[in-house]
């Protein structure tokens, strides 16, 4: 029983971390339909900037805010320079964002050097609680809470405002949305910036979790985020949350019970979901 609880809690925490990763992509890829391969770059920048602010100020909170700010600024630059010319064209998006991904990753090395950098859990979040054989790691609990907060905030915004609808409408027919009096370019810009901020936030939260940041960290995690967005259902926050937790739990159980398949677990999960539910688990509908 303790074992099951342990596996579940850890799976949940990993899932939440993956959700945070995927949440930005849910906006950018799921909602805005931009195949942003530079997402991992934004994530890595968030991690580096966050750790930098954190080390400089000694406050993890400032680190987090610094990361979010970096995400917002980078999101602004990325949208204006890279994404604006290629809305609606997936083929061009792949090329230009992959190029930008290379630039972002290498620039990290220019700024902070090519070596990995240690990231520590702030003392008030370090350590764990033990209840018998059940071990609750504080930082993981923190991640779970942040995940739910992010989910709540964004779900609220999307439910209560027209933004989600406008973005989806804009993806289908940009001209028509403008003809209805909406400055869709600005909406896209803001949503993209929000997505980048989320990417950066997940980056800085990831850093102490694994204890290390490195320039190449982005790409692997971005693929995971794409997987989650697709199996969760494009543009659906509940979908992403559910899928992320599914991935987290599957990984946790699989590594314990069927270790031979643990390398393949994400891919298997995605294949199974897509074959039986080709549109993903949820849809963007309210």
């Amino acid at each position, binding site marked *: 029983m303790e074992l099951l609880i342990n596996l579940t809690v850890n799976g949940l925490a990993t899932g939440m971390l993956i959700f945070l990763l995927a949440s930005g992509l849910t906006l950018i890829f799921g909602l805005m339909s931009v195949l942003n391969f530079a997402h991992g770059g934004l994530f890595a920048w968030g991690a580096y900037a966050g750790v930098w602010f954190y080390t400089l100020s000694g406050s993890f909170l400032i680190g987090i805010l610094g990361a979010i700010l970096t995400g917002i600024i980078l999101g602004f630059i990325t949208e204006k320079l890279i994404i604006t010319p290629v809305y609606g064209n997936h083929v061009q998006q792949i090329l230009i964002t992959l190029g930008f991904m290379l630039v972002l990753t290498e620039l990290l090395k220019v700024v902070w050097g090519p070596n990995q950098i240690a990231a520590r859990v702030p003392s008030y979040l370090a350590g764990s609680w033990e209840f018998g054989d059940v071990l609750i790691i504080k930082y993981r609990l923190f991640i779970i809470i942040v995940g739910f907060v992010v989910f709540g905030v964004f779900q609220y915004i999307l439910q209560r405002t027209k933004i989600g*609808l406008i973005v989806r409408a804009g993806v289908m027919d940009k*001209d028509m949305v403008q003809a209805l009096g909406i400055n869709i370019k600005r909406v896209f810009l803001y949503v993209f910036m929000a997505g980048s901020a989320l990417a950066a936030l997940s980056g800085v939260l990831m850093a102490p979790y694994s204890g290390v940041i490195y320039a190449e960290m982005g790409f692997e995690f971005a693929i995971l985020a794409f997987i989650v967005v697709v199996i969760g259902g494009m543009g659906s926050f509940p979908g992403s949350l559910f899928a992320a937790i599914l991935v987290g739990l599957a990984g946790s159980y699989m590594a314990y019970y069927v270790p031979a398949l643990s390398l393949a677990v994400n891919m298997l999960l995605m294949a199974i979901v897509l074959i039986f539910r080709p549109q993903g688990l949820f849809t*963007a*509908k309210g």
Partner: protein
Amino acid sequence: MKTLLKVEDIHTHIGQYHILQGISFEAREGEVSVLLGRNGAGKTTTLKTIMGLTPASKGTVLFNGQDITKKPTYTIANGGIGYVPEDQGIFGDLTVEENMKVAMRKEDDAAFARQDYVLELFPDLKTFWKKDGGHLSGGQKQMLAMARAFVNDSKLLLIDEPSKGLAPIVVEKVMEAITEMKKSTTIVLVEQNFIMASRIGDRYTLIDDGETVHAGEMAELIHNEEVKRKYLGIG
């Protein structure tokens, strides 16, 4: 009567094509102006140019005394122009409700009153309130497109072929609605159904090959057999 919209000798290029080659007309407040012309004449492009979707390379569009020729589309729309495009422009993955919600510029009581009015006009929309726009029938889409434009308090409405695909009885309702709207709104209409056009139109502009070739009072046109035969193939 005051001129609300004035289109002066506009030329529009799409890609390397010179589509509009001199369109001029005006729409006076409280009137229905009809654009007529055969397929491919440039009627739709004229409306799009007014909306800023295919901006004019030459000429001016004056709305309410202001030059809106080079303004971005959303500014033009927010200035009080509603648009019902010819291909309806329904957001297929959004429900009828969501389509309406996106369209509603200001969510005040007046807007909801207008919404109630259009829903009475097109009860089908009420029935299918939660249905995806993409799953509506052709005529229902047309209704939704109009409802989206009617729900806002616009000074000017640009309507591209509203009667297309509608059952005769609904066409009649649309005509009533337009006549009703006329009290508060100016309307520019593109319409192939000459019976409808002639019944609700106050004046007309005839477009051929991207140019204005004729304009005047609708009442005149009804009796001008020659123009009707030459440009409209009727009579």
